[in-house]
């Protein structure tokens, strides 16, 4: 299966837990459906981050179960019925927690990788 291998070569595997952060961050700009979220992440990362549907949908359903996001069926711009997810109040708090955790992590990573800058 050559094309499959190719697909995976250009992809950066997402760190454990970062997908939740990406989804919550994406939904901050407004309700979005699953496909929209995956396109948004891909576009904003400059085509580098490709979210696997096999990870995206389980994550969406998990976040919904944790009540950080809410889902409702709406009609899209293309007159298609789609399931839209939006951030809940608890989700907003979770997002800020995750963001601070992430900035701590990236600071720490940067410190390790570029010791002279600090």
């Amino acid at each position, binding site marked *: 299966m050559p094309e499959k291998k190719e697909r995976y070569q250009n992809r950066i595997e997402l760190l454990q837990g970062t997908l939740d952060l990406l989804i919550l961050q994406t939904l901050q700009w407004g309700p979005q459906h699953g496909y929209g979220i995956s396109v948004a992440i891909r576009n904003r990362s400059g085509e580098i981050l490709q979210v696997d*549907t*096999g990870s995206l949908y389980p994550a969406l359903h998990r976040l919904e179960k944790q009540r950080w996001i809410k889902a409702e069926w709406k009609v899209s711009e*293309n007159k298609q019925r789609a399931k839209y997810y939006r951030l809940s109040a608890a989700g907003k708090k979770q997002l800020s927690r995750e963001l601070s955790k992430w900035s701590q992590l990236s600071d720490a990573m940067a410190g390790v990788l570029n010791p002279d800058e600090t």
Partner: protein
Amino acid sequence: MIFWRRKTHETELDEELRTHLSMAAQTRMERGVDPEEAERAARREFGNVGLVKEATRDAWGGRWLGDLLDDTRYGLRMLGKNPGFTAVAMLTLALGIGSNTAVFSLIDALLLRSLAVPAPRELVHISFGPPGTKGPLSGPMFDRLRERQSAFTDLFAWKNGPMVLTEKDAARPITGAYATGSAFPTLKLKPRLGRLLNWQDDEPDASSNGIAAVISEAFWIEHFDGDPRVLGQPITVDGGTATIVGVMPRSFNGITVDYAPQVVLPFAFDVALRGKSSCRFRASCAWFHAMGRLKPGVGFAQARANLSTIAGDVLKESLPSNYERVDYLRNGILSLTPGHTGNSPLGEVYGRELWTLQALVGLLMIICCANLASLELSRTLNRQHELVVRSALGAGRLRLVRQLVAESAILAFAGATAGIVLSQWMSALLVGYIEQSDFPVFLDLRPDTATLAATIALATLTVILAGALPALDLTRVHTEEMLRSGAQRTVARKRHPFAASLLPVQVALSLLLASLALLFAISTGKLLRMDPGFRVKGITLFGVDFERRPEKGEARLDLHRRMLEALQRAPGVEAASVIAARPLGDGGMDESAAPVEGNGPETRHLFENVVGPGYFQTAGTKVLAGREFSQFDRLGATPVCTLNEAAASFFFPRQSALGKHVRSTEPNAARATCEVIAVVADAKYLSLREPAPPTIYYPYEQLPSFNWVGFITRSHDTSAAVAAFKNALSRLAPDTPLLPPITMQRQLEDSIGKERLTAALSLFFGGLALLLTSIGLYGLESQRVAQRTAEIGLRMALGAQGKDMLWFILREAGVVFAIGVPIGLALTFAASHFIGALLYEISPLDPRIHFVTVLILLGAGFLASFIPARRAMSVDPMVALRYE
């Protein structure tokens, strides 16, 4: 996740993913890609839809429940699609589990279950007798022991015995028991109603204000309609009257496993009834089944040590003065055994046979498991394609295994349920074999926690063995490889080593079970057909209890005479006489005698029987020389006696015993010497398995103080004799309780109850084993033929003959037997050690037995593999090849 909401979630997920795909395709089309290509690309990017769904469902949580439901539903559907397999598998399980549960529940009831009292482990039995025996204590022995012991909170004594309940002049037999006043407090029992017996009830002067009695709950409900006003009611038992003061709890049925007393009385009742002749205070009367409860903190070993320090003094003070002369008393010691399971005479008799049967049904269970496993395996083999497709569609391996296990679990559950139902029926059958006619056996066979736990463990084990192992093995499939080769059925599937190794084991175990069954059956057949020295057909024995008749002495003898006359004259009765010791009954009398003339040895222990005129003719025992007792052998006439051949040749070897004299050496013998008037053939009074004991017969009319005689009749029809006896009794001695009559046939069968039990059950289990193995073999060979249809077709197309193909299949069965039969024979020889003692006049190594069993097994095996082999023979090469 609540499962009824699952459906909505499922459709929503479907729609959500479909939207995703169509949007992705839409985006591509907007970029100018043609619709078909766009859709394909979107699909490729998306990946395996089934897998995504699976992963998303995982996020829902509570998934196992939904999966379980799915598995169950799917499993039920798959089982329903294959009713033949399902029926055979369920039947196999039900039979295996049913037989195991039935035998185990009997073992549990007789040997394992604790008495329903608080802290049963603290209870111990105290018994007296020569080392190795467990006999009862005498009253004085118990009293001295109770005074001196320091290891027990208290001791109590118990004595079971049939009693006669008299109500409004009607008498009927009931089960009764005597207990010391300490019994219920020591057992720590709480009453169901009223109060239980205590020490005051058992005081010697207790009779002055009425003696107390307690009754069982079953008797209370059945006889008094569960009326609480039963308290204070009088009850007349064995001619004495007591007052009911309480009802025992339902769970307590006395201290003997197979005997449930309906009425329990204090020993004071017997003292009040019989006065000085009561066994309560007599040293020569060993009556008491004694038990004690260990003091808290006192261990069994400590109690035993305490007992051994006081035993000498206790025995010195309590043995009768003549104990030196009686072996049993001289060698007697006091011993301690654990008592939490209570007393189980039946368990002692049947223990070895029951464990043997348990071992047999255990082996049967292995065969059942092996059968199930190979059935399951061949079915899974057939479903390999289905499994491959399912795994290609995204089912995880664990999920597949779980599916297969779920099917086995459904089977196990259904099989266990059917097995428990079957075991109830089989238990009843088992008890029927054990039951003696004198008194119904009381056995609580309701499956308790232990039995149910054992059944569930067995079923679970079966599931693991039969379902999961093959599943694990088979789900290790290489999806692509299988998909590619799925259509090419000529690729002979590798022989499955697991399945192949099961059949020889089954064959070996079946051979073992069949050999044992044949051995037990032949041994029991020999016992049943042997000549016991008396007639069996047409003989009926009647017990009679004239204790409470006013006639005593000569008048009593006359009552017997009139009864006998009435019986002899009754229509349908060919002959009748009087008999004391029933052949093969429980009892018997010992007598020591010495010849007066003759040169035989000094004394000899004899079996003694007391009979009436015409006894030998009635019983069918041959009179070899001399004459029968007649009505003229009465008190005042010359004391006479009859010897059997064994006794005659012992006392008077190589000479005629007729006219010689024999002197009784018993201290309290009624008469010193008697003249031998006849020599009769040996008859087996004690046991069919042992040679007839040397026996002496006395005429009952010369022993007027001897009261315990019954009647024996010979008739074409038992009911005629029973009617005649009833008629005579009601006319000559009304208000005498009618004890259940017993035919000699039944008496004989009862006496070899355990042999019959072992034979009948091992035959049943052996047959079952044979059947199961045949089914297993048939299943496997059918499967092979089905799998190799193409190969066989090809071979036939290339010129192979039908008989070659027959041989081709039979050869495989031959290999199974070539491995299984020697193992089975080796197992049988190994087992012969353990069963030799259970057999009568047949060696467990008898080559004829093994020859026959191997033949039977080969026959069954040939039949089981011949049917599929015939199918192989009739394969049409064209059809088989076109099938590709």
